[in-house]
């Protein structure tokens, strides 16, 4: 079934079940993303793809990668409010993504576009940057596409980490599928597999890692 909705002031047609992000891509409107991958199920954690939707006169902010299009929906992919959300999200995420005082790749590009000051919160940030933004693309790709379940999350909140499971990580040497996915380049640059020697989940949970 075809659905008609308004995207940035234009009438757009989409198929039922599509997300706003997919419909926008078909319509040639770019919405920035950090955790989205077209082969993976929507995860909705980077929130960079946030857009404004208006329904029955009520305006909400939603993650376009997960919100299904609806007949008559009004969507704005850029607005002062959206731009501000993206700018501050980038300023926050820059702290953990930082390498030698700068960010790289998509984050750098977006930071420029949204005039994000990547050093804004630096003076309060007391942790060593992990260079990982926990977008989960590696974890989900390994689960959903490769089917090896060699990477997973451990820890909660600011202690959350993506880690290789050592008893399964042997396949990684030949697979390397996640290397190209990593938006900050942490996996290809640091994964020499020496790091993961002798690693165990128990060690992590015991706070030894």
């Amino acid at each position: 079934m075809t659905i008609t909705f308004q995207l940035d002031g234009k009438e757009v047609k989409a198929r039922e079940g599509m997300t706003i992000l997919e419909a926008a891509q078909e319509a040639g409107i770019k919405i920035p993303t950090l955790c989205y991958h077209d082969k993976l199920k929507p995860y909705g954690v980077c929130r960079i793809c946030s857009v404004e939707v208006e329904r029955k006169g009520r305006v909400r902010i939603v993650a376009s990668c997960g919100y299904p299009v609806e007949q008559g929906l009004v969507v704005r992919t850029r607005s002062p409010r959206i731009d501000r959300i993206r700018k501050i999200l980038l300023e926050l995420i820059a702290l953990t993504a930082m390498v030698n005082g700068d960010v790289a790749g998509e984050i750098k590009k977006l930071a420029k576009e949204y005039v994000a000051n990547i050093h804004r919160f630096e003076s309060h940030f007391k942790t060593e940057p992990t260079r990982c933004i926990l977008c989960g693309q590696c974890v989900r790709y390994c689960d959903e596409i490769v089917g090896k379940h060699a990477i997973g999350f451990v820890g909660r909140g600011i202690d959350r980490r993506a880690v290789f499971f050592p008893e399964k990580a042997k396949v990684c040497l030949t697979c390397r599928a996640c290397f190209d996915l990593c938006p900050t380049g942490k996996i290809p640059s640091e994964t020499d597999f020496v790091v993961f020697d002798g690693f165990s989940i128990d060690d992590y949970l015991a706070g030894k890692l």
Partner: protein
Amino acid sequence: MKDMSNKRLSSVKELEELRQEILSKRDPDKPIITVCTGTACQAYGSLKIYQEFADEIRKQRLEGAVVEAKATGCHGFCEQGPVVVIFPQEICYVKVKLEDVPEVVSATLAQGQVIERLLYKNPVTGEKITKDPDIPFYKNQMRIIFGNNRYINPREIDDYIARGGYSALSRALLQMSPKEVLDEIKKSNLRGRGGGGFPTGIKWETTKNAPGEPKYVIVNCDEGDPGAYMDRSLMEGNPHSVLEGLIIGAYAIGSHEGFIYVRQEYPIAFENTIQAIKQAEECGFLGENILGSGFDFRVKVHRGAGAFVSGESSALMSAIEGKVGEPKMKYIHTAVSGIKGKPSCLNNVETWANVPHIINKGAAWFNSIGTDNSKGTKIFSLVGKVNNTGLVEVPMGMTLRQLIYDIGGGIPKGKKFKAVQTGGPSGGVIPERYIDTPIDFDELTKLGSMMGSGGTVVMDEDTCMVDTARYFISFCCEESCGKCIPCREGLRMLKEILTDICEGKGQEGDIEAIEDIAKVMQDASLCALGTTAANPALTTLKYFRNEYEAHIKDKRCPAKACKALTSYYIDPEKCTACRICFRNCPTEAIHGDKNIVHWIEQDKCIKCNTCFEVCPPRFNAVRRISGQPLPPPPAPGTKVIREKKR
């Protein structure tokens, strides 16, 4: 469960016969001593006291027909625990000790004499109060949901049935159609007690009408707000009331399978729930063909694993599925697509417990209580700087002032009320000037706070509002699952900035940074934990911005609570060298001698506040100084100035 244990009830008639049989065995004039064994009273040793009563009754040969001891759930007046109530006179003894037991048995139970010293004393009038309904703490409440706790042994279904329990279930199942039950709940305007205040009837209807089978109904008992324990006390003290509501809801929705999600940290709630389900199954309130109605329903208990965020609907449902308890995007409501993608209706403990009352007394009765948009009562846990801490149930629309002063008995030590935090870490602080606000879902939201599940933390003039925000933000930072960026990184940064401000390292631009981050968290977080987590920071900024500015610009904590910004100083003109602070200082930072003015060695001082608290009010020599230079210590050997006797 005596002779009925092998017989499932199969009709309303049989339920009524059982109720009459239970009641006929009970003499309403027989003295019953109930000992509160809620969490707080248990911490005071009430289980031992209950055991002692049972033993003492046996020792004094009063057991059996003469008197009976009963361990009940929480009565609510935790401040005065252990609480003991003797029926039928309703004599209430507070702060009962083990050694009081023989006297209570021989004097009160055997002879009906009241023991003066164990009665509650009204701190204002000094009057001793005999009956618990006359104590102001109870008198100003409306205990519909919570009131049965004091009569019921939560591990005995007979007690619940004797109080009219499961009559709403039989009414719903045998005299009403599912549609009629749903309509009654919709008409009652009951709103979810877990925090959001979503209309319960509409939620039920959404699940009922959603395509897909099976449909699930779930009890959310993952309460975890700091200072909140309403759901715990209800689940521990009267589990059958929640179960009865759940079964009625399942019938209305057309669900045959339910879950009760109990958090890991509530072992008694877990045990009592398991016991309640077992007994309800034996009686035929659960299982196949309930009360001969043809309706089948089963329920399982799911135990949490210690994560606050699992109280969020999609996270809770993931946990029930056996996955990590993390929220998911839910642009399709869990009421439509929840557990295993099936329609799942999740309500809070207190919401379910309201249902039997609405079915029994009708939507019109429920609508007669409360305000225009918030009907019925709400249970609050009243904690913090308030005289009568405990669990209170009040009609919606009662003002904060009535709650804090009439029921809570005001602020201890004659201090000034400053603010009240409602709604737990997702709520906000409400300052003194709004103390006459009626408690109502919408009124509290208008002030930037929320009803939440009912945690109510009262704060006095010694509470620093920046530190309060730091505390709640740190709590959420610990409890965030870390999945989405705004919540994880936003909370991390808010916590760092607020900690820096409290430590005197605040910088220009910090307030704007807090506001920017908080706004993005509200707008863009994945789940309600993130969208509401910044509320404590935003409300303290809204109402106490001057305190933030004082911390940042003047390096001064107006409440003199932030250690890094506060120093302790002994006024040489007031010190009488009484030696009390000297003896109590844990770090030996206080120097001085007999007749020699005392002084504090600042490098050794850990700012524990002990000297300030122990200095006798008639001397009032210890001062807390913030934002001003510290006066130099007195010259060595300065003698005490004594007023000459006239």
